């Protein structure tokens, strides 16, 4: 135990808070937040310390304990803290403490106040553990614990059937994707013989030519390159958590959770796990160009698709959900292009901004929620309108500035084909346009038009009158968070150089992919175009908002393409119709037809036929054969006796024979009476037959 052991407290404190809240039950009541806030707050303080430590002395490892050992597989749990980890730690604990403070007011009156705080503390714990894990298995554990926490949080309002459905859906979609992750991890162990992340990354380059034979069990020879394949599988897991197409369907449904949870899911935890995983394993990732291309394509498609869907939605929470999917898609795309620094930068900026955005939305929604007392309201949002627009613009401008800056210009020629490079550029530009469009729109729809569709029964007039509920705490938190977002954003943009070089050691990128000539290489043509397009999108949305033109007008609804996107590309319907329902129907069919009618019937028929056989045996062989024979012997002995008596007169013999005959007769009758059609009999017969059959089998061999 060295001095670094103190940083165990970063994950430990949230865990302890969660445990105390769970074990305390209702005792804590509405004081629960005090425990949560102090634990996460302290955790944040330690994260800052860890940041300073890494800044000064570089990465460090804290080993925890030996999880288990089995043969050559030994798992040692350890915390690994490097530049990447500390940045994410700051984001996670920071956003989480803000969410905790915010929720302490937001959740007042909720009957499950303590449960809520217990679960978000656990949620924070699992994300913290995820970014700190030095072992793939540990990463998997925290990955899944996070999933189950999200399940608990989405189903928080458990009396709503839709909440339960959404929670199940979210977890199951993730479970399917996690098959990829788990398989990837097993494949990693098979290839590298260890699950320690740093060891794997160090060995990765040397293992490039290593092949394994995946068809060995069939006696065939099909060698594959595991190093090229592992990133694919790991990425499938990342697609689930980060809501990439086609696993994105759970995120919009996750909006069933209380709004602060959405802030946590979208900004700090959960969806960020995907990009984090990819960046963490970047040295492994870059060895597989195909996987990189695949990742880039998935990311780009998601960014574009979700962006357009978000434009067509009218429900504020749906807009936000799809905007997150799109933003994460952007991060994934940059990962696929090798621009890992951009990914993390975008992740941090997006995290801060989205947290702010969701908490504001929460306020707005809360104020129009049915049955909620409004009280004295103060229109604080309009004061900050300017800054909010500024935030949206900043976020919209981030990708083009970073992505098309000099340092990453050469990324666009990723595959070596000029057409592909142009294709990526075009997709990138369109995405930039769409992003700035919907970012602006979400701002306007929240603060100008209001969240009209979320509670349709409430009518249109809810929001203008009393827009935002400004408790002192929440108001100041929001403003503070916004200022922090802007400051961090501006600072990081200014210190982009510093940021890139700070993160560089954690990425260990080959020199080809990254060189030391960042922003000040001057404005390139592409960058200017990109920024121009982003601003154009922003202006377009602004004009549209000013002119009062509603996108969701009746004219639009008749357009096929619009309807397609308005229905979110029919993904949910497709899954329901072609995956979920058939699976359930198939299981019913399998149960009724195969299990009940074939296997069970077969066994039954064995039983029934042996009963029949037993009866036959009894009627035909036993009564007609043996019994008659015995009786016949008796009768014939009597006859013989008579004959003998006629021939030679031996009285005593006759007597004896007569006795024997009658005895046999009664024995036969007795047998007939005793012969029971009882269970024991059937069992005996079965046993007899089995002994006979197996004996025969054995003898034959």
């Amino acid at each position, binding site marked *: 135990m060295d001095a670094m052991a103190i940083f165990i407290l970063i994950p430990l404190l949230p865990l302890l808070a969660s445990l105390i809240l769970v074990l305390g039950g209702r005792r804590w009541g509405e004081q629960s937040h005090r425990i949560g806030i102090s634990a996460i707050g302290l955790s944040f303080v330690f994260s800052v310390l860890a940041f300073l430590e890494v800044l000064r002395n570089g990465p460090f490892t804290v080993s925890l304990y030996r999880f288990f050992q089995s043969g050559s597989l030994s798992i040692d749990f350890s915390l690994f803290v490097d530049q990447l980890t500390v940045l994410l730690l700051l984001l996670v604990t920071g956003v989480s403490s803000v969410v905790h403070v915010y929720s302490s007011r937001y959740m007042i009156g909720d009957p499950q106040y303590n449960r809520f705080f217990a679960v978000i503390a656990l949620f924070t714990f699992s994300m913290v553990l995820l970014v700190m894990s030095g072992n793939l298995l540990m990463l998997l554990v925290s990955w899944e*614990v996070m999933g189950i926490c999200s399940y608990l949080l989405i189903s928080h309002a458990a009396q709503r059937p839709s909440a339960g459905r959404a*929670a199940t859906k979210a977890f199951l979609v993730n*479970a399917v994707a996690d*098959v990829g992750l788990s398989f990837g991890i097993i494949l990693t162990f098979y290839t590298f013989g260890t699950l320690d992340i740093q060891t794997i990354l160090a060995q990765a380059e040397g293992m490039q030519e290593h092949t394994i034979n995946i068809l060995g069990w069939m006696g065939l020879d099909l060698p594959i390159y595991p190093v090229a394949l592992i990133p694919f599988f790991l990425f499938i897991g990342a697609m689930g958590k980060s809501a990439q197409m086609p696993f994105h369907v759970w995120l919009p449904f996750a909006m069933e959770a209380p709004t602060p949870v959405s802030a946590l899911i979208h900004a700090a935890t959960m969806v960020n796990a995907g990009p984090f995983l990819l960046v963490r394993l970047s040295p492994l990732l870059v060895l597989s160009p195909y996987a990189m291309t695949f990742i880039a394509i998935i990311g780009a498609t998601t960014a574009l698709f979700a962006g357009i869907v978000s434009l067509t939605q009218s429900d504020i929470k749906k807009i936000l959900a799809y905007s997150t999917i799109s933003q994460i898609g952007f991060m994934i795309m940059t990962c696929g292009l090798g621009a890992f620094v951009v990914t993390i930068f975008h992740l941090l900026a997006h995290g801060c901004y989205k947290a702010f955005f969701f908490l504001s939305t929460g306020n707005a929604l809360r104020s129009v929620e049915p049955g909620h007392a409004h009280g004295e309201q103060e229109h604080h949002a309009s004061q900050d309108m300017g800054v909010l627009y500024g935030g949206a613009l900043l976020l919209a401008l981030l990708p083009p500035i970073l992505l098309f800056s000099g340092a990453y210009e050469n990324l666009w020629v990723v595959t070596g084909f000029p057409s592909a490079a142009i294709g990526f550029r075009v997709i990138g530009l369109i995405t930039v346009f769409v992003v700035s469009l919907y970012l602006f729109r979400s701002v306007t729809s929240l603060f100008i038009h209001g969240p009209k569709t979320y509670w349709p029964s409430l009518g249109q007039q809810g929001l203008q009158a009393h827009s935002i509920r400004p408790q002192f705490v929440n108001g100041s938190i929001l403003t503070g968070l916004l200022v922090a977002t802007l400051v961090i954003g501006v600072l990081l943009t200014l210190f982009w150089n510093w940021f890139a070089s700070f993160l560089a050691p954690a990425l260990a990128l080959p020199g080809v992919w990254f060189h030391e000539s960042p922003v000040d290489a001057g404005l390139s043509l592409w960058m200017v175009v990109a920024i121009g397009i982003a601003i154009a999108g922003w202006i377009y949305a602004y004009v549209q908002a000013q002119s009062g033109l509603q996108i969701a007008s009746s004219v639009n609804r008749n357009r096929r393409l619009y309807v397609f996107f308005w229905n979110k590309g029919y993904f949910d319907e497709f899954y329901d119709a072609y995956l979920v329902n058939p699976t359930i129907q198939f299981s019913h069919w399998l149960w009724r037809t195969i299990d009940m009618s074939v296997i069970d019937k077969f066994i039954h028929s064995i039983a029934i036929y042996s009963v029949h056989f037993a009866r036959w045996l009894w009627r035909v062989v036993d009564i007609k054969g043996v019994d008659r024979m015995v009786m016949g012997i008796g009768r014939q002995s009597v006859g013989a006796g008579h004959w003998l008596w006629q021939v030679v007169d031996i009285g005593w013999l006759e007597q004896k024979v007569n006795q024997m005959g009658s005895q046999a007769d009664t024995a036969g009758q007795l047998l007939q009476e005793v012969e029971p059609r009882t269970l024991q009999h059937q069992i005996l017969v079965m046993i007899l037959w089995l002994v006979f059959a197996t004996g025969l089998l054995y003898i034959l061999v």
Partner: protein
Amino acid sequence: MDILMGHIISWMILVPFLGIGILAFVRDGEWIRRIAFGSTMVEFFLSLVLWRSFDFTQQGMQFVERMEWMPTFNIQYAVGVDGISILLVILTALLCPLCVLCSWNAITTRVRAYLSLILLVEGAMIVVFTALDLFLFFMLWEVTMIPMYFMIILWGGPNRNTAGIKFVLYSLTGSLLLLVGILGLYLEGGHTYDLLVLSEQTYPSTTQFWLFLALFLAFAIKMPMVPFHTWLPDAHSEAPTAGSVILAGVLLKMGGYGFLRFCLPMFPEASAQFAPYILWLSVFGIIYGGYMALAQSDLKKLVAYSSVSHMGFVTLGIFVFNSQGIQGAILQMFNHGITTAALFITVGILYDRTHSRAISDYGGLHKPMPKFVAFFFLFSVAAFGLPGTCNFIGEFLVLVGTSYVSFPMVLISMGGIVLAAAYMLWMLQRLALGEPSTKAAGVLPDLTTRELASVIPLAVLVLWIGLYPGPLMEMMDASVTHLVQQMAASQSNIPALTAIR
């Protein structure tokens, strides 16, 4: 002290029977329960003593006791434990007190008989897991069946007679094959029933083939592997809670134990020959059981079919013949014992309140029974192998072991885990979330202290093993390594095995 430590396994065998003896003289219902609980607790305490004094570094049998029993036939009373059986002994001793606890109020008629049956089955199972003499093993193997049969037909659900008969018929068929196998071993192995002697010998291939087949079928029925599984849903769902707990928790493990104790060390060649088929059958069973569970509307049947699926992982792990697979399989047996027992106990708690097993009769339980839902949730997620809970470790190790053999099997088995998540979460959604479907379901009382006492130990174990499985793995490491080496040594020249590696 010496009289205890020198004969600790005999004491463990004796205690339940002593308990039955005392029960015979007690009339008061409450005292009957207390005495039964007391003797199971003494048993549990003894199993802890056994665990503490067990030497992990030794691979062989420990605490061995031998005595002549029927010298004419070379039959001995011989018992002992090694790393493979000790976990199962502990599991038995752990679950039986909980069985008594969970039938405290649930059983109102013929309490003494019921509790005596639990004790009887406990004693018999301890013998099965520790016997070093095949005759002793077989005799007590048979004995375990009888109490279960009576528990089902006397205290069972509405369909108990069919279920009881089915259970007995299947079990008898299995034990018959077992008998054939054991007699075969006796004849082929030099007229001895000594397990240790028999395991050291090499048998000709044809003998191995047939004896393996007989024993395999016997254990596969007990396990149960897929085509032989139809007794299980009926027996589990009709049995009273304690019956289901013992059945699913411990009795099924006799099958897996048999594979490890008999099939692998005695017939390595035949095992390797059959392994590819068994492996695919296991994979099929995992998926098939998952689909079956998805189709159920009866809580107990759902849990029962999920057992079929989980037992697939056990056979999968055993027949890949490497230490990850086998350790994973043993751990999976132990963990499945814990989680399934926990699920049956929690379902039993519901059944005690409403006398209904249909999922559709509940709903919205989170409101009236928050504590219950919390525990039920934990056990359900553990049942589908959520990382951080106990089942994950076993399944993960089995899959790692399987990856040495075949990647498609790994991928397909993972589909089984997804299915498990689907049926468990779907059940939770229908049971715990939403609005209560009947008025009665909305006002059910939450867990009582005694019910809490029966689920808390299991909840602690679920999390403890899930987060720190190291100690359990250490316990079996030496024995499993020995077994794997034994397999490898006798198989290095067999083409079938080198192919599947």
